[in-house]
C-alpha cells in the first residue's frame, strides 16, 4: 500500500468569475483521518466533489489511491466511498432495501449480499428499523444508513462531507465512534467539518480552508502552536513572589487577584526549560504551572482574521 492515499497539488476551481478553490495542496497519509475545516462557503464540498470525480478541476493534479481523478476516474471510483453533505438515501425504500440497492449496483461486491446488508444493519444499530421506509428515520438514523450505504463497497478511502452537520450531540458522538472504528479497520478518512471540536477530536491532520485557500495545515497540536496566544500560566503563593516574577518576564501579564502570571510562550520544551531555569535562578517557585494552548476556535480567528460561524456566536 502506498503511504499517501490522497495527493493534491495546485487544485483550482472557479464557477464563472467566482474562484472557489484557489490553489489547494494537501497530502493524506493512508490509514489516517484528514479533516478539512472551514466555515460554510469555504469550498469544502467543491473539494470533495473534485476528489471524488464528481467535478472536474480547472487545473492542478489530484491523485487518489495513486490514480489521477481526471484521467482514471473509473479506477478511483472503484476504490472510494462517498457520503455527501445531505444524506443520499432513497426515502421511499426501507433501510434494508437501500443497502440491498447498493449491493445490487456495486460491481465490486461479489460475496453474499444478504449477509453484507444484515451485518451493516446490525453494526449501525438499524436492524429494528430495517423494514421501515427511510423517510421515517430520524436525522441520526438517516446519516447512519447513508454511511452504511457507503460502506457496502468496503472502500479503503472514505470521503465524509460534513457527516455530523445537523445532528444532536449524542448522534454526533456515535458518528465519531463509527469513524474511529473505520480507521481502526484500516480505512483512510477525508472528512470535512465546520465544527472545530470535531476536527480536534478525530483528525490526525487538519487543513483550515478559508475562501478557497488553505490558511494552515498540521496536526491539531501544531496548529494550536502556530498562532500567537499560547502561554504559560504560573500561580504563586504570595503577591511578593508574583511581583518578582512579573519583573523577570517583561511581556507578561499579572493577575493580582488570582496570583497568576501569564507568560507568552510557544509551548515548546526549549522555551519552557528556559522559563523554568529563569525562575530557578531567582529562587522563585510557582504553586502551579500550566501550558495553555488555545482551542481551535482561537486558531481559526487568528488564522483567518474572522471568526467561524460556529465560533462567532
Amino acid at each position: 500500500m502506498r503511504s499517501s492515499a490522497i495527493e493534491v497539488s495546485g487544485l483550482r476551481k472557479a464557477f464563472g468569475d467566482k474562484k472557489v478553490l484557489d490553489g489547494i495542496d494537501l497530502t493524506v497519509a493512508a490509514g489516517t483521518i484528514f479533516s478539512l475545516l472551514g466555515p460554510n462557503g469555504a469550498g469544502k464540498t467543491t473539494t470533495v466533489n473534485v476528489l471524488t470525480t464528481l467535478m472536474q478541476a480547472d487545473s492542478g493534479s489530484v491523485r487518489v489511491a495513486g490514480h489521477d481523478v481526471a484521467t482514471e476516474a473509473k479506477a478511483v471510483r472503484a476504490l472510494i466511498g462517498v457520503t455527501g453533505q445531505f444524506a443520499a438515501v432513497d426515502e421511499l425504500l426501507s433501510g434494508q432495501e437501500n443497502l440491498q440497492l447498493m449491493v445490487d449496483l456495486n460491481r465490486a461486491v461479489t460475496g453474499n449480499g444478504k449477509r453484507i446488508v444484515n451485518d451493516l444493519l446490525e453494526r449501525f444499530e438499524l436492524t429494528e428499523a430495517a423494514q421501515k421506509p427511510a423517510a421515517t428515520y430520524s436525522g441520526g438514523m438517516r446519516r447512519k444508513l447513508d454511511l452504511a450505504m457507503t460502506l457496502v463497497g468496503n472502500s479503503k478511502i472514505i470521503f465524509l462531507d460534513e457527516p455530523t452537520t445537523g445532528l444532536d450531540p449524542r448522534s454526533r458522538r456515535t458518528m465519531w465512534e463509527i469513524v474511529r472504528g473505520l480507521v481502526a479497520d484500516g480505512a483512510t478518512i477525508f472528512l470535512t467539518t465546520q465544527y472545530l471540536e470535531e476536527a480536534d477530536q478525530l483528525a490526525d491532520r487538519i487543513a483550515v480552508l478559508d475562501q478557497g485557500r488553505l490558511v494552515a495545515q498540521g496536526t491539531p497540536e501544531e496548529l494550536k502552536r502556530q498562532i500567537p496566544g499560547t502561554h504559560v500560566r504560573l500561580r504563586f503563593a504570595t503577591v511578593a513572589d508574583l511581583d518578582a516574577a512579573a519583573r523577570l518576564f517583561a511581556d507578561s501579564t499579572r493577575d493580582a487577584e488570582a496570583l497568576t502570571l501569564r507568560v507568552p510562550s510557544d509551548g515548546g520544551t526549549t522555551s519552557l526549560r528556559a522559563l523554568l531555569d529563569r525562575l530557578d535562578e531567582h529562587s522563585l517557585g510557582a504553586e502551579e504551572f500550566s501550558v495553555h494552548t488555545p482551542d481551535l476556535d482561537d486558531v481559526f480567528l487568528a488564522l483567518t482574521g474572522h471568526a467561524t460561524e460556529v465560533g462567532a456566536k
Partner: protein
Amino acid sequence: MSKNQSAVMLRRNFKHLTRNPTSVFNAVLMPVVMMLMFVYVFGDAFDVGVDYIDYATPGLMLLAVCYGLGATATSVNSDMTKGIINRFKVMDVSRSAVLNGHVVASVLTNLIAIGALLGVAFLLGFDPSASLLDWLGAIGIVVLLGLAAGWFTIALGLAAKSPETAGIAAVPLVMLPFFSSAIVPAELMGPGVRQFAEYQPFTPIIETLRGFLNGSPDTTDLIVAVAWCVGITLVGYLWASATFKKRA
C-alpha cells in the same frame, strides 16, 4: 460477473411508484375517474356519430399515458436534487441505467393504467371491432407514445429546479389531450382551437388508436403518428442526455 444496473434501477423506480399513493392515484385511478365522468356526465352532450364510450376510449387511453407523467418528472428530479445521483455516479452507475429505469417504469405504468382503463371501458359497454393484429398495433402505438412522452417528461424533470416545479412542468402534457380529438371531435371546437387540435401531435396518435380499435387503421394517420412519436422521443432523449450531463 457483470451486474445489470438498468434492471436494478428499474426495480427501484417501480417500487417508488407502488409506494407513492399520489402517483398511483394520478396514473391509474385518475383516467378511470375521467372515463366515468365523461361517459356518464358529458357523454350524451356530444354527438360523435357512434357510441360515446367507443369514441372516447382511445382518447382516454392517451389521457392515461399523460396522467402518469407528473410522477415521472417528479421522481427523476428528486434523484437529481436529493443527492442520490452523486452516490450513483461514484458507483459508476451509467446515465443510461439511471434514465432508462425512469423511462421503462413510466411506460410500464402507462400500460397498467391503460389495462385498468380498458377493463372499466368494457364494463361500460366498450365494443371495439379490432382484430388481434389491430390490438397489437394499438399496443405498439401506446408504447411508442409512452416512450416519446416519457423521454420528453424526463428532459422536463431534469431541467426543473425542484421536484415540485418538475411536477408542474408536466402539467401542459396532461392538458394537451383536451385540445385534441381525444374527448370530442375537432370539428366541434371553436375556430383557433380547432386548427390547433387538428395539427397537434396527439390528434393523429388518437386517430391511429381509434382506427386500430375500429379495425380500420388509416395509413396516413399511422405514419404521421409514428413520425411524431419517433421525433419527440429523439428530441426528449437528446435533451435529457444533455441536461443530465450538465447537471450531474
